[in-house]
């Protein structure tokens, strides 16, 4: 299969939309954000959709009358902010805030104190009030795979997908990359191995992968 035809190529993975659980919607999310004073964090492990949700929120923020600015926690972040100062109508979205040191985080917060709002992503809570804790489930993974391959899961049994999901510790993005290699026929792909403890945990409790709330 050619890379351009592989349903799990980067462009397709990056276009996967964030899926809310049944009791949550964009309206609820934005309401909660406003209740938190427009300063909040999306929290969750790697590959749980934090960046996806952040980017989609960034696209929607203009509906609220703000101008969104998407940033990544990387070298030059503070220089960039000083070069292009934040205005009162700007709503900031910072991805991977955990990459900042404590000092950098304090400097960043001070530099953006005049912004209309700030939403960050982080692996752990504690940076800002938690807006949403992103989690993944095997069912969610199956849903995404089905969408990417156009609904025909013939080649992927639920057991296969679950095994892949568990092997990647719930990191859906990594699991989708693994599917690229399986579908593309790359010989080098092998399932990552889990420690026996992680394997027991995965087998014993489906609720380890809690639903997004």
């Amino acid at each position, binding site marked *: 299969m*050619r*890379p*351009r*035809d*592989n349903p799990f*190529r*980067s*462009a397709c993975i*990056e276009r996967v939309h964030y899926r809310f659980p049944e009791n949550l919607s964009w309206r609820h999310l934005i309401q909660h954000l406003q209740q938190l004073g427009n300063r909040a964090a999306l929290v969750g492990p790697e590959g749980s959709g934090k960046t996806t949700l952040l980017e989609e929120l960034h696209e929607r923020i203009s509906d609220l009358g703000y101008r969104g600015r998407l940033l990544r926690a990387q070298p030059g972040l503070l220089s960039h902010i000083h070069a292009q100062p934040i205005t009162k109508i700007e709503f900031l979205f910072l991805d991977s805030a955990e990459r900042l040191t404590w000092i950098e985080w304090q400097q960043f917060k001070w530099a953006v104190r005049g912004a209309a709002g700030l939403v960050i992503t982080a692996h752990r809570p504690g940076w800002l009030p938690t807006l949403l804790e992103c989690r993944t489930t095997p069912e969610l993974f199956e849903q995404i795979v089905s969408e990417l391959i156009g609904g025909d899961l013939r080649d992927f049994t639920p057991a296969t997908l679950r095994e892949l999901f568990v092997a990647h510790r719930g990191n859906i993005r990594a699991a989708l*990359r693994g599917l*690229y*290699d399986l579908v*593309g*026929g*790359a010989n080098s792909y092998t399932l990552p191995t889990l420690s026996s403890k992680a394997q027991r945990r995965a087998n014993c409790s489906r609720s380890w992968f809690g639903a997004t709330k």
Partner: protein
Amino acid sequence: MSSLRIATQLQRKSFRPGEEVSGAIGWTLDKQPKSAEVRLFWYTAGKGTRDVGVVATQKFEAPQANDERSFSFRLPESPYSFSGTLISLIWAIELVVEPGGLSERLEITVSPTGEEIVLGKDALHRPANNAAA
């Protein structure tokens, strides 16, 4: 109802590097657009993050709500259209109309053979060359 159209001369989809790609574009819009342009570019698809290289752009002056124009580009020497295991490189012509970001894309193939080069299909495991030690 808006619609955009791109077509190359003789409906060609295969070209060789250095060749001229020409054709016609057209659009039917509800109201007069502010700008319209056609771009010749390549992009990658596959496991790696997409890269894009815009090679040439042709802007159209005073676009009307219903319009037909012609375009012409000279293809560069490289890159060729190819597909391997991780990367596909795809050439395309895209018409973009503003406001609204309406676009229409036509994919073409650019290579010395006129066909997409498939990596690994040829040039494998040649016998050892003469080695004088």
